[in-house]
């Protein structure tokens, strides 16, 4: 292998750029919906606090959305620059799904984003609300298409191999609503809403702890927690269903994320281990007998295929899926516990005064991002060595570009993303610190709208 292997470098580059990108949609899908809800509440009740929250969080949304747009643009070109064979062989199937994402989602978001961000004083309130709804719908429609595309790559159906050597579509319905799509789509949307709920709730808790923006902080924490209370347990259920689906269609992925080497019934649940792909075994294993079978198959005696039942060249390396899966599930458990604790405290009337709980919520704010990343690492590394499961290998998907070019681009991306996204997080933190109080009421356009930013400039 060449020292600069274009395949390995392209994989690292795609992992790097898509990991950065997914952070922003995970946040903005939920944020756009929440902003539309806030605006609806303001239109209905006329309470200024909702409008102040909406205007303040619109600014945070704008920064996140902007970074999502530019990092997403990169991905739509990387399919060709780095994975041209995948594009050539799978283009008939994947291409139209992407094209529909552009036509139904990207244009919708971009077309109404201007009005949502800057149109407060230019259009009637109802039109502004419609714009917010359109942006929120756009984020969901975008998730629909891209998850249909990704799910098809995981559990491909509805295609045939043409006489021209590339894949053709036999049924669009089966391509879009492929076996894993309903689970992956609902799991991801729930993850995005949870990510936003923890950010909003956590920052609300921080305001309350700091004894500032109390009215805003309470609404943020209250709304965030009510979503978490229902959604965190539901997410566990969705994840479980997703797991059953993967066991049926991608057994090698399940074997990898559980680090099971041997096929068997009454399989233990491995809590911790160091999987060793060379020796095909685990070191330092801590396991609970039979629980693995119960969780994965819903049957104490359920059979789980081990990694050894797949040819070495057909299995994923279990190390990343194994640990990423445990991080994701662990975070899920923390989320459920926080939702339940919050509900108990609210019921007893001490939600806004329990400093320990508020602190916990504050530190839990970024947990959703970590869970989303871990989940995608499980899904994508667990799909290896395939780009399209069982049909097209990753090694056969890569572009005919020299390793030096990919090394150059990877270095540039690391540099640029480091600067740009470092700055983005810094400016979002600055906006959060400035708080909603600095946001002027509607109707005070013009110069007044500069004030909060100057406040943010001199904290």
């Amino acid at each position: 292998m060449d020292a600069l292997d274009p395949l390995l470098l392209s994989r690292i580059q795609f992992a790097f750029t898509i990991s950065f990108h997914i952070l922003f949609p995970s946040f903005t899908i939920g944020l756009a919906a929440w902003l539309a809800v806030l605006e609806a509440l303001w239109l209905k009740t006329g309470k200024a606090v909702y409008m102040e929250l909406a205007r303040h969080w619109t600014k945070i949304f704008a920064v996140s959305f902007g970074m999502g747009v530019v990092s997403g643009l990169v991905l739509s070109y990387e399919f060709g620059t780095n994975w041209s064979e995948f594009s050539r062989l799978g283009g008939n199937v994947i291409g139209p799904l992407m094209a529909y994402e552009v036509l139904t989602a990207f244009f919708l978001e971009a077309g109404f984003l201007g009005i949502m961000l800057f149109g407060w004083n230019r259009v009637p309130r109802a039109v502004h609300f419609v714009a917010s709804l359109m942006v929120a719908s756009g984020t969901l429609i975008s998730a629909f298409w891209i998850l249909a595309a990704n799910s098809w790559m995981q559990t491909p159906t509805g295609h045939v191999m043409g006489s021209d050597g590339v894949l053709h579509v036999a049924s669009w319905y089966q391509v879009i609503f492929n076996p894993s799509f309903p689970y992956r789509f609902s799991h991801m949307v729930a993850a995005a809403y949870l990510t936003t709920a923890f950010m909003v709730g956590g920052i609300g808790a921080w305001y309350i702890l700091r004894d500032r923006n109390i009215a805003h902080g309470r609404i943020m924490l209250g709304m965030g927690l009510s979503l978490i209370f229902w959604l965190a347990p539901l997410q566990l259920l969705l994840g479980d269903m997703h797991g059953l689906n993967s066991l049926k269609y991608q057994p090698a992925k399940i074997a990898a994320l559980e680090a099971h080497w041997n096929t068997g019934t009454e399989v233990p649940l491995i809590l911790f281990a160091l999987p060793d792909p060379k020796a095909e075994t685990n070191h330092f294993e801590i396991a609970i007998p039979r629980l693995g079978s119960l969780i994965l198959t819903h049957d104490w005696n359920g059979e789980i295929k081990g990694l050894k039942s797949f040819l070495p060249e057909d299995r994923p390396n279990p190390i990343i899926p194994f640990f990423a899966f445990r991080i994701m599930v662990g975070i899920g458990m923390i989320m459920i516990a926080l939702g339940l604790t919050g509900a108990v405290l609210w019921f007893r009337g001490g939600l806004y005064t329990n400093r320990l709980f508020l602190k916990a919520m504050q530190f839990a704010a970024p947990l959703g991002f970590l869970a989303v990343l871990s989940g995608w690492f499980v899904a994508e590394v667990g799909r290896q060595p395939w780009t399209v499961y069982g049909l097209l290998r990753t090694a056969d998907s890569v572009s005919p570009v020299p390793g030096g070019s990919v090394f150059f681009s990877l270095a540039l991306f690391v540099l640029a993303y480091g600067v740009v996204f470092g700055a983005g997080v810094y400016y979002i933190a600055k906006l959060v610190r400035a708080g909603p109080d600095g946001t002027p009421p509607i109707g005070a356009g013009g110069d007044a709208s500069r004030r909060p930013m100057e406040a943010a400039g001199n904290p």
Partner: protein
Amino acid sequence: MTEYLPILLPMIWASILALAVFLYVLLGGYDLGLGVLFPLAPSHKDRDAMMNSVAPFWDGNETWLVMGGGGLLAAFPLAYSVMLPALYIPLILMLIGLILRGVAFEFRFKSERYRYLWDLAFAGGSITAALMQGVVMGAFIQGFKVVDNKFAGGAFDWLTPFSVVTALALLSGYVLLSAGWLIMKGDDDLRDWAYRVARKALVVLAAFILIFSVWTPFLHPEIAARWFKPAHMVMLSPVPLITAVSVIALWLALDRRYRYAPFLLGVVIFLLCYTGLAVSLFPFIIPPDISIWKAAAAPESQLFMLYGAVPLLPIILGYTAYSYYVFWQVGDEGYH
């Protein structure tokens, strides 16, 4: 009817993509051009005004570029899979440029101390993106080495004297559009400056169009044959003639300080050059071998997309126009 689909559909999709790319060149063009002009603007106040004039639109403008890339993958996967690896380095540089200038919209108004750095990112990113798009255009016209349906050339095949000329030509064209935009949208001081910029850009662009028009036919004998066959020369002569008339008209419009004519005539010049290019290349999507029919996605894929594109594109154009209508008057509430 169905037996004609494999012939018709690639032509329809080539037209839709040509429209998307043309809209990007116009909208992304004035948008990137503002970034190119940014460091030269007379004052800080003007720079703020320039940025606010495009702040509500840049995301929508850029979406046409996503449509161009995504649409190429969807409608002509073979062309996408040959061109993108061939253009690896210029495309990556373009993307990095677009990232830097895109986030500058959000960041520069949030920073006091480091605003100059984001100004630099906006200008540098815009210039890089514009130049790389011009390089891509030049390399595309020249064609790529293809063996066995795959790109088989080197990492720097795109870098030729011709692609350097097209890069500079496109840059000057973007500057002209952008000056036209500021003539429509700027206050009196900014407009005075924009008129002066537009004149210089027009002279440079006219020179580049001339070089480009003389050079292109020599790249492929087919192109020369198409333009210089006596029968064709008569039929095609309006393209260069109207271009020349438009350049002169634009000069006069700048002289008489018309408000809307400079931008509109800039659009006309772009449209004519674009038409000339289409005449030269049709029906090849990777000249001189791969036609739109050879590169086309399967008919069932192109048809499936067409069901969506036909109703959606007019709707998209509609709400895009509405957004331009809402923000036509430049206010100061743009970016914070």
